[in-house]
């Protein structure tokens, strides 16, 4: 009874604490600006979803990340601190080849007085280590550490029961093998297991870390269409390079020959739309989730009253639970559909007639 009462008091204190904390935060924002700036929800949300050249650590402190530009006159590398010494201030950096200025989040070539030189900007290729890239490297490092340890402990503990990190990862790995790879690909699933495992855990880890609101997390990698495009291009190449004769026959030789004119274009478009659907599904789900949570938190700043906070925070807790489900589900669906396409590509002739193709 005492413990239950204590728990209830702790939870109430936590919610009251969040309420007072938002009050303090809004007061600070007024003081920093001087005049009160109207809160623009669209701008704030877009800023949190898109990439940036520096990594925000806490409040206004940011870690400047390197800007790497490949111009037609050579490679240029400098710290993004030169382009933006403080939050919101953008200065012109005089590089060795051109002068650069930050416009939104893209680096543009300017002349000495600050006018953007469009023609030169088009020729500059931006290979910078932006926040998404840096966080992706961090996620890769985490994946490598975890899985190299797990595989080392499998080698060490041959025939014995799994222990520690190994026993935590084993159900997930067996889930990918027994529920995703084996039923959809068939007998030759072992060849594609590394690909499916990588895709599943990469998407899952990045989705989960994107939901963490403080320092190393809170980045929107799987909600960046370029990243999902690369993942679906990988699936595209694996499916089409492993397609056997029956796969190509199914596409180019329709069953009654007189359906030739309509079925072949439809099937060819189908080769491309399946990976494109994978790409857009993952991108839209994750980005929509982030936008939703940011909008609910922005409600507090739009109404400018502290009493909206409990309502908003309760909604955000529910949305976070749904987003957790979506993070797992989208990783599972991407991997499942990838396995399904690979299975369709390497299927044998007998299975083609008995199995229902989606």
């Amino acid at each position: 009874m005492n413990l239950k009462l204590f728990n209830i008091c702790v939870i109430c204190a936590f919610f009251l604490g969040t309420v007072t904390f938002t009050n303090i935060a809004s007061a600070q924002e007024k003081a920093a600006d001087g005049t009160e700036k109207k809160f623009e929800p669209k701008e704030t949300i877009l800023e949190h979803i898109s990439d940036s050249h520096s990594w925000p650590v806490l409040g206004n402190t940011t870690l400047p990340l390197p800007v790497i530009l490949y111009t037609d006159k050579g490679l240029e590398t400098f710290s993004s601190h030169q382009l933006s010494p403080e939050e919101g201030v953008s200065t012109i950096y005089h590089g060795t080849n051109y002068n650069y200025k930050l416009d939104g989040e893209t680096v543009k070539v300017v002349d000495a007085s600050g006018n953007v030189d469009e023609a030169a900007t088009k020729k500059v290729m931006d290979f910078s280590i932006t926040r998404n890239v840096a966080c992706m490297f961090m996620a890769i490092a985490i994946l490598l550490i975890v899985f190299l340890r797990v595989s080392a402990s499998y080698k060490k503990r041959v025939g014995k029961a799994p222990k520690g990190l190994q026993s935590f990862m084993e159900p997930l790995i067996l889930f990918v093998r027994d529920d995703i790879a084996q039923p959809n690909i068939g007998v030759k699933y072992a060849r594609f297991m590394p690909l499916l495992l990588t895709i599943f855990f990469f998407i899952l880890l990045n989705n989960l870390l994107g939901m963490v609101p403080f320092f190393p997390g809170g980045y929107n990698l799987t909600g960046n269409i370029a990243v999902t495009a690369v993942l679906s291009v990988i699936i595209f190449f694996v499916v089409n390079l492993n397609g056997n004769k029956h796969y190509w026959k199914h596409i180019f030789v329709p069953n009654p020959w007189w359906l030739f004119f309509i079925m072949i274009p439809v099937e060819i478009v189908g080769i491309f739309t399946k990976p494109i659907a994978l790409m857009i599904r993952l991108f839209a789900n994750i980005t929509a989730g982030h936008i939703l949570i940011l909008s609910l938190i922005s409600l507090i700043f739009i109404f400018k009253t502290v009493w909206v906070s409990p309502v908003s925070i309760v909604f955000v807790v529910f949305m976070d639970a749904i987003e957790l489900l979506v993070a797992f589900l989208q990783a599972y669906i991407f991997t499942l559909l990838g396995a399904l396409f690979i299975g369709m590509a390497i299927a044998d002739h007998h299975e083609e007639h008995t199995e229902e193709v989606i």
Partner: protein
Amino acid sequence: MVLAQATAAVGVHGSLGGLGAGLAAIGAGIGIGQIGGKAVEAIARQPEAISKIQLNMIIAAALVEGVALFAVVVAAFF
């Protein structure tokens, strides 16, 4: 455009993109509602198969939601 003039006269703030996203939400709602309804009926018929039915329901719901989100993405960016 007639629609833009009509909305301007009435005083509705929005864009065709918002309208498109709203229609997509109707489609998603109907689709996922059907999936959920049939899944619940199937569970009522055969309660031992709950976990399989639930798994398939979630997969189908994610696929339908994917289609609705295509429409939202196209509405937002075009």
